[in-house]
């Protein structure tokens, strides 16, 4: 379990924009994951995604890592930004675009 947290921490810090999701941006397996990946695609942002359905350790571990019970989860520069509702709200208000412009 500790190893999983370490692995997740390294992953999160290794990418500027990282999305933990169910499925892939091309084939999302859940509507919430689809929404967030679609927003990132619309913004033409280069992002990495991890399919939590392919790794049980990460699927369980990421929820502890961020104290957040659901997937998707978006990280920018190692910071947890939010799940679907927050990302959507930030996108609609233009806040997400601002953060991405500053950090990437």
């Amino acid at each position: 379990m500790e190893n999983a947290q370490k692995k997740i921490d390294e992953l999160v810090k290794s990418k500027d924009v990282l999305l933990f999701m169910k499925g892939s941006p091309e084939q999302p397996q859940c509507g919430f994951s689809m929404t967030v990946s679609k927003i990132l695609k619309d913004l033409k942002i280069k992002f990495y995604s991890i399919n939590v359905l392919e790794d049980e350790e990460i699927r369980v571990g990421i929820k502890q890592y961020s104290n957040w019970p659901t997937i998707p989860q978006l990280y920018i520069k190692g910071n947890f930004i939010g799940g679907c509702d927050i990302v959507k709200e930030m996108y609609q208000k233009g806040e997400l675009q601002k953060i991405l412009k500053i950090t990437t």
Partner: protein
Amino acid sequence: MAISREELFRLLKSGFPDGEIKIDDLAGDNNHYAANIKSSKFKGKTKVQQHQMVYAALKGKMGNELHALALTTEEK
């Protein structure tokens, strides 16, 4: 794996006694809800912290009994 609207309301109300809580059952299946909560407890908190407070009020049910909860939180 579902939770009734009444149970969801009760949990949210116990977490946010001053809360103005609106709940919609999106799919009519007791498993996909949208909730809007206005509470003074959100004051000075980030969105992530606000939602974490809501999840804490749901006592581990989020992601388990409750599959989907579209959440909006506002300061009162």
